[in-house]
């Protein structure tokens, strides 16, 4: 997919059309001159909370959530195999749901809370260790998508069966064929989580 223009967007005040170089300056202007807060977002501006951090940015209508998270925010854990919704490697958790960043328009994600593989690793989730322990990757390209999907499953269902794990991971493809290892890694992480919880 082609990307839209990379020029820094002009930040126009919605009340008096004064222009500013950065969104922060525009905000300061609106609060001090027009005495209003919060600032109504100009068209195309979205706020995303990614791994707990708020990002405000201007997006073009055709930018996917993948493009924003990977290309703009630089979070490389979200991967792309197919760009058509058929492989799960671009999975992120949005408001609790494992969804495909390649099939979501960023402009429709204003106000959403998103978790990526980076956030899962930073939070020291046991999935990461158990994935390493069980050699759940060969090339590793699909792995963040699997882990993110598995995290969404464990958030909802802390004690899944093998079948439930396999069903939840059914939309994630692995070209290297690591499939048999995933249920083992996920079940062990689930057990670790339950033990940590009961301490």
């Amino acid at each position: 997919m082609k990307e839209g223009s990379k020029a820094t967007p002009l930040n126009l005040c919605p009340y008096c059309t004064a222009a500013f170089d950065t969104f922060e300056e525009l905000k300061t202007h609106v609060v001090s001159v027009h005495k209003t807060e919060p600032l109504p977002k100009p068209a195309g501006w979205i706020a995303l909370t990614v791994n707990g951090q708020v990002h405000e940015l201007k997006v073009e209508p055709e930018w996917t959530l993948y493009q924003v998270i990977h290309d703009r925010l630089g979070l490389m854990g979200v991967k792309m195999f197919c760009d058509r919704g058929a492989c799960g490697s671009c999975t992120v958790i949005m408001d609790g749901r494992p969804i495909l960043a390649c099939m979501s328009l960023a402009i429709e994600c204003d106000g959403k809370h998103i978790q990526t593989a980076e956030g899962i690793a930073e939070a020291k989730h046991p999935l990461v260790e158990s994935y390493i322990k069980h050699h759940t990757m060969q090339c590793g390209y699909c792995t963040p998508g699997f882990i993110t999907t598995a995290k969404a499953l464990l958030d909802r269902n802390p004690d899944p069966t093998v079948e439930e794990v396999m069903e939840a991971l059914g939309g994630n493809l692995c070209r290297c064929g690591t499939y048999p290892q995933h249920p083992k890694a996920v079940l062990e992480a689930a057990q670790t989580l339950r033990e940590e919880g009961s301490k």
Partner: protein
Amino acid sequence: MRTFAHFNARTVDEVVSILRRYGERAHVIAGGTDLLGKMKDELLPKYPEALVNIKSIPGLEYIREDHGTLQIGALTRLEDIAADPLVRGKYNALAEATRRAASPHLREMGTLGGNICQDIRCWYYRHPDNRFPCLRKGGGRCYAMNGENRYHSIFGANVEQGCYAVHPSDTAPALIALNAKVKTSRRTLAVEDLFEVRVGKTTVLDSDEIVTAFEVPTPAKATKSSFVKFALRKTIDFPIVNCAAMIASEGGRVTAARVCLNAVYVKPYRATKAEEFMAGQPINEANAEAAGDAVVSDAKPLQHNGYMVQIAKVMVKRAILACRSEAPPAQT
């Protein structure tokens, strides 16, 4: 993707007025799982000028029982329907159809409205960059009729158009078997009457009309419903053939049956011959088999899809058998 104008609509009226302004040049976007793939591949002769997001409309995502009906908002995600205890309890065909559609991620994103309004998957039609400007795109011929047609219609083409592309939805046959209605921004009609094969269209919806809800009558006590699907992989894959049934019985005999196949014809295909055959009969292997035979007796397969006839027959049989009162849940 090339750019387009984008609107986050707040109300159904707003959607209608934007669609009216753009005519055929705008599309609504719900989960986007079908539409965005089409746009990335530059599939259509005319790239949309505008998208109207309907996920931003509050109150179109719900599942509730109301006066002997199940009401489901058009934006309700397939995954939420599949997991809903109410749906799983009394509307098994719909619960199974939503559970078996696409992949877990796509079910978290895909809506019931979008699933019913999704476009065909004929691989000539879907080839990137409008490589095959076929009949269904307003072009001169069908490439599948004498080409690779192993996933195409076994019950003939649409008469005026000569198009053999099957309808790919998993939820459509379930809603039709359950005798559901669809509510749009301007009318209510039977789901069965929603589908229409036209250039660039799969439904009778006008260019400024959207689906807002579904209404499923609560089945009577001695009624069971089922959904079975045959696909190459258990998840992600579209159905090669699927089938839903709803059967009411009394004293061990069928009093009323509704059976619907999909992915075998240009629209969901009511298996009326199976329904007629089962009337007054007990549900057993022999009868279910004969009902399947009756349905495919007038199949007209193309060069490469003869195998689908056998699958359709077995899907009808299994869907019927799964409606036995003592039936274990169907395993396909």
